[in-house]
């Protein structure tokens, strides 16, 4: 079966982790690993895996437009603002791994169809990926949700400079996405960094304030959602709930990373990458159908 050709722009930890995941995919192959420095660690890894490299940045794709159909942009928000219009003109499907988020907010377990009808999608935030499927599952079988709150705790070691300086953006993006998917406007997102060693896995709790919920149908809805998520995030577990405490439905999930290139405790980064791969594979499956 012909695999969809994907190019990875950005050879840091995220890009390299994506590469390793792609190599396991039956639907996509990495046709080029593109960065700015052939000597970077990611480049060395890709070289050892026999992948075609380029240090020309976006020019590598401009100069060779047939190299790929889909591009993972794992560079930076500033760079993505430059890349997006170029990739659009070249008719590429773009999966935005940066904080730029100009395209469709995507949760594979929820709006895959909407995503593949667009040409620029992003994975929201780690807290969003972990919580929104659950919040959505609850919202599907529950009326009159008054308020949704999502709390994520991640290991300090998994939060680099980029995360720390953009905490406000993280909160705002997560809240916006929760509202989009659950249609509830009264939403709050909280994030904590925990410095404990050994590093903790990503922990996310979803609180949904509602009167008279039907816990049975909620549980069924969440179980069905869990099955969907497990298909693309193997380290995702529901460790608490759903329980109904003091007028609030509570569910806690834990995400442990797969440890492909990122460390295992970086479940927060892994879930984003897993989601990105899931979307890319859906694009691939769709193209094959055509």
């Amino acid at each position: 079966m012909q695999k969809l050709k994907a190019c990875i722009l950005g050879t840091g930890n995220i890009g390299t982790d994506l590469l390793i995941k792609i190599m396991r995919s039956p639907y996509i192959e990495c046709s080029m690993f593109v960065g700015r420095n052939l000597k970077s660690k990611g480049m060395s890894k890709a070289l050892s895996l026999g992948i075609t490299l380029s240090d020309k940045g976006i020019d590598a794709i401009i100069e060779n437009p047939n190299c790929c159909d889909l591009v993972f942009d794992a560079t930076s928000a500033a760079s993505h603002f430059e890349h997006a219009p170029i990739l659009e003109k070249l008719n590429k499907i773009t999966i935005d791994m940066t904080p730029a988020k100009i395209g469709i907010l995507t949760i594979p377990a929820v709006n895959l169809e909407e995503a593949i009808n667009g040409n620029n999608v992003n994975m929201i935030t780690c807290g969003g990926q972990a919580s929104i499927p659950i919040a959505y599952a609850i919202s599907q079988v529950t009326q009159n949700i008054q308020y949704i709150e999502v709390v994520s705790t991640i290991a300090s070691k998994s939060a680099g400079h980029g995360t720390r300086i953009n905490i406000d953006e993280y909160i705002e993006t997560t809240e916006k996405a929760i509202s989009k998917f659950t249609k509830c406007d009264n939403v709050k997102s909280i994030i904590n960094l925990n410095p404990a060693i050994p590093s903790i896995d990503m922990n996310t709790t979803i609180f949904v304030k509602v009167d008279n919920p039907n816990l049975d149908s909620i549980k069924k809805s969440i179980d069905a959602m869990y099955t969907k998520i497990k298909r693309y995030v193997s380290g995702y577990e529901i460790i608490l709930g759903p329980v109904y405490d003091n007028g609030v439905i509570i569910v806690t999930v834990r995400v442990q990373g797969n440890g492909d290139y990122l460390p295992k405790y970086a479940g927060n980064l892994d879930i984003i990458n897993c989601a990105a791969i899931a979307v890319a594979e859906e694009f691939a499956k769709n193209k094959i159908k055509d």
Partner: protein
Amino acid sequence: MYFLNIDLDEIKKIEKLKNSRILITGGTGFFAKWLLNAVILLNDKYKFHIKLYLLARKNNDYIEKTISLRSDIEFIKNDIRNVDELPSDIEYIIHAAATPDNREHMSNPIDTMDIISHGTKQILDASLRLNNIKKILLLSSGQVYGTIDGNHIKEKSVGLLDTNSIKSIYPEAKRYSETLALAYKSLYKLPIIQVRPFAFIGPLMEMNKPWAINNFIASAIKFKKIKILGNGEPIRSYMYPSDMVWWLLNMLLHSKDGAIYNLGSDNGISLKDLAEKIKIKLGDDIKIEIQNMNNDKSIFLPDISFVKDELDLDIKVDIDRALDYTIKWAKDNI
């Protein structure tokens, strides 16, 4: 622009820069902006025909606007750490790629050290293949002097950096780069000079940077108050960027290889007096609050007798005029 004291003698001293090719790394920073404006002046008014390259990770609006449609200035987009090959016609390099913003040093310490140390190595490596290279000017930092009597520090002075403190992240990386440069000079005889900048004030400087003088000006304009955390007695000096630019261009031409020069003003002023001057210049009812939260009475001034003697340079713009021009610009840009 805000250039002061351009007399024909000054222009004559740097005549040899006519038709030269100059590269500035850190091409979007404060130093680069002023050097860029100097080159434009020299080219437009005095027909110097300098070809200028600016290298930086990404462009900014000011640079883009200033160099658009100019064929004598080219922007090279690259991370200094990835620099491999440079345009082969380059004769002079001013290596200013690094950030002096100490908030960045605290939040991004590894990148800070990497950009400085690795970036310097890349530039020196690349210059080995430049056949026409005449001078490489590396911008270090006055902070490399470490703990030392700060009253007019001579270039020969050696101080200590506290290896137990994160405050050493920036100066240590700069110190390492200085020694790395010596290694290149020793092995390959590259024409390197090192310049240690102190403090500056002038238009085009971002007023929200965390330095006392910037804070004073911004706060006085925005809130009609100046807060001095300590006792106001620390003594500092501030060089106006036009002096800085003329010094750097002279250094490119007239320095001896291997020389080290301080870059700054030796005219000290206490923080208290500085605040008073700003208050008077703004002519408003500005409240100065001396909080006495610490007992810092430190002095940090360069000795510039070496620069004066060797290069026949001096401070032409005093602190009053420097403040006048900066405040005028800040009022329009805050």
